[in-house]
């Protein structure tokens, strides 16, 4: 009898502690402050976060999402009280339209001025007041120098017949159709049905030569040399290059898609001040030097250059150059036209 009662009490006590644990922490009153970060997995150097926690006597809860739509759904449902989120470029535009982002108090984020000037007010956030660029890069052509002796210069080079069965394109309708639009000298956000149709026609010609439409395991396929040439993001190219030194990367002369993941604060964030402090901290030159070396993406922080290692500065995959940034074009919200892109994309992938 006694044994049973004490067991029951222990169980109930455990259940209460277990349930209550979450509440206490997200409340943040009296206890050390809490910052709820919602980001991509493995997107920030853990040592950097630990330093921020120590300096500000707070705890950073790092939760992860796998794609922008998931992030949008979570914020839209309400109830999830995140302080800092990391939407990609087009998602910033969508969230702005829906009024879901808090205006940043840039006076609290003086380090945002360290960001390269042409990334300060990008097309998706024209005032630059609701988001700051975190990781960014461009979509270019990745190729293996062992099999492809002459470096590609144009998107047209993907169409060469000798690469049959060795081409990988990203598994993304806007990226792939946008690439073909760029090849033909149009905007990658084209709303003109004739331009899009012509681009898709070219892609249908290319499709039989394509090994795969792949985003998630594209790096593995290039390291293992299953694929010789394809479209890839700069950050992934840098990752691939570390394991296979035959990898080369070029931004074609026609220009290319430029993209970014950002920091933003959702409306109603419970700890806005700490969130701004965190964002500011991330752009401290020394901190960002350490952080970008860890994650292996281009550092948008101009002041950080002197703190970067030679190896990082000379990484051929990360050298984009200002002229290419200026030739880059952001993917913007194309509204209704997206159904047209989706339809063509399905046709393309099903080989109709």
């Amino acid at each position, binding site marked *: 009898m006694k044994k049973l009662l004490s067991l029951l009490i222990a169980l109930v006590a455990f259940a209460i502690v277990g349930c209550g644990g979450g509440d206490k922490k997200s409340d943040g009153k009296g206890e050390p402050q809490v910052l709820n970060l919602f980001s991509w997995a493995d997107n920030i150097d853990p040592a950097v976060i630990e330093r921020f926690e120590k300096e500000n006597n707070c705890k950073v809860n790092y939760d992860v999402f796998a794609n922008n739509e998931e992030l949008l759904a979570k914020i839209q449902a309400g*109830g999830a009280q995140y302080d800092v989120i990391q939407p990609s470029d087009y998602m910033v535009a969508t969230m702005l339209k829906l009024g879901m982002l808090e205006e940043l108090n840039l006076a609290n984020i003086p380090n945002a001025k360290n960001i390269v000037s042409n990334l300060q007010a990008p097309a998706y956030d024209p005032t630059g007041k609701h988001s700051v660029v975190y990781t960014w890069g461009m979509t270019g052509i990745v190729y293996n120098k062992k099999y492809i002796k002459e470096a590609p210069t144009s998107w047209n080079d993907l169409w060469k017949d000798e690469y049959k069965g060795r081409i990988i394109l990203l598994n993304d309708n806007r990226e792939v159709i946008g690439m073909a639009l760029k090849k033909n000298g149009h905007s990658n956000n084209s709303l003109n049905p004739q331009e899009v149709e012509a681009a898709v026609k070219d892609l249908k010609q290319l499709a039989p030569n394509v090994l795969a439409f792949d985003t998630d395991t594209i790096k593995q396929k290039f390291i293992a040399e299953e694929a010789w040439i394809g479209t890839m993001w700069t950050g992934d190219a840098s990752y691939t290059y570390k394991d296979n030194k035959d990898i080369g990367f070029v931004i074609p002369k026609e220009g290319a898609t430029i993209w970014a993941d950002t920091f933003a604060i959702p409306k109603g964030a419970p700890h806005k001040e700490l969130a701004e402090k965190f964002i500011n901290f991330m752009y401290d030159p020394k901190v960002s030097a350490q952080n970008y070396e860890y994650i292996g993406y281009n550092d948008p922080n101009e002041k950080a250059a002197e703190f970067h290692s030679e190896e990082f500065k000379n990484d051929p995959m990360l050298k984009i150059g200002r002229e290419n940034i200026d030739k880059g074009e952001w993917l913007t919200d194309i509204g209704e036209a997206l159904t047209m892109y989706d339809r063509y994309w399905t046709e393309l992938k099903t080989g109709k």
Partner: protein
Amino acid sequence: MPKTWRSHVLCAYAMAILAFLYLPLLILALYSFNESRINAVWSGFTFDWYLALFKNRRVLEALTNSLIVAFASTIVSTVLGTTAAIALNKYQYKYKSVINGLLYLPILIPEIVMGLSLLVLFSQAHIPLGKTSLILAHITFCVSFVVITVNARLEGMRPELEQAAMDLYATPFQTFRYVTLPLAMPGIVAGALMAFTLSIDDFIISFFVAGPNSTTLPLYIYAMVKRGISPEINALSTLLMLATIILVIIAQLLQPQHISKKEE
């Protein structure tokens, strides 16, 4: 002659099915010992990924979250499910079959519908998403499984045992404590283990109702895959798989039919 020929074919067919089911899991486990960080090439044997895993703060946090949620929801759903099963088994009342059906419904409903409806419920009721909402959601689907397992055990129990206890002047509580509960215990433990396994493995419902500071292991693995598959994920999945298999085996051994056979 034809008999052996037929049995050979059948045997090969069964083997092929087993290979189809388990080969991917074996390959996943195998590559967790691969030296290269690329899944495509085998370059040598190493335990490094397991070591790296236990130094990774995010992984440990996700593991802690998973365990807290699993323990809390197991305990609550076992208590609720056991009492519900006993009541359902013992008493006759109106609409019994309806109530029975309602209890089994969460098992039949597509998880995605349940996740979505729970998310809507939480946001309507202004319950902040986080560990609390996650635990509540897990209790909801675990209860049904506990009821089913405990009920199966109770149905195999003869009512004479309880009646005999009452005949010997045991109070209702004593009867429950010294007769019903011990007899039902294997079913309860099996139900609890089942609930624990389901909670640890759940992805779809958690995906909808998780909030700040409540990323569980399955959610973390999913997000990591999108970022590029490293053998660390293989190692993590292998451990999760092992834990699940062990729990399921224990639960199977405690299943009522096993025990009653032994007792008879």
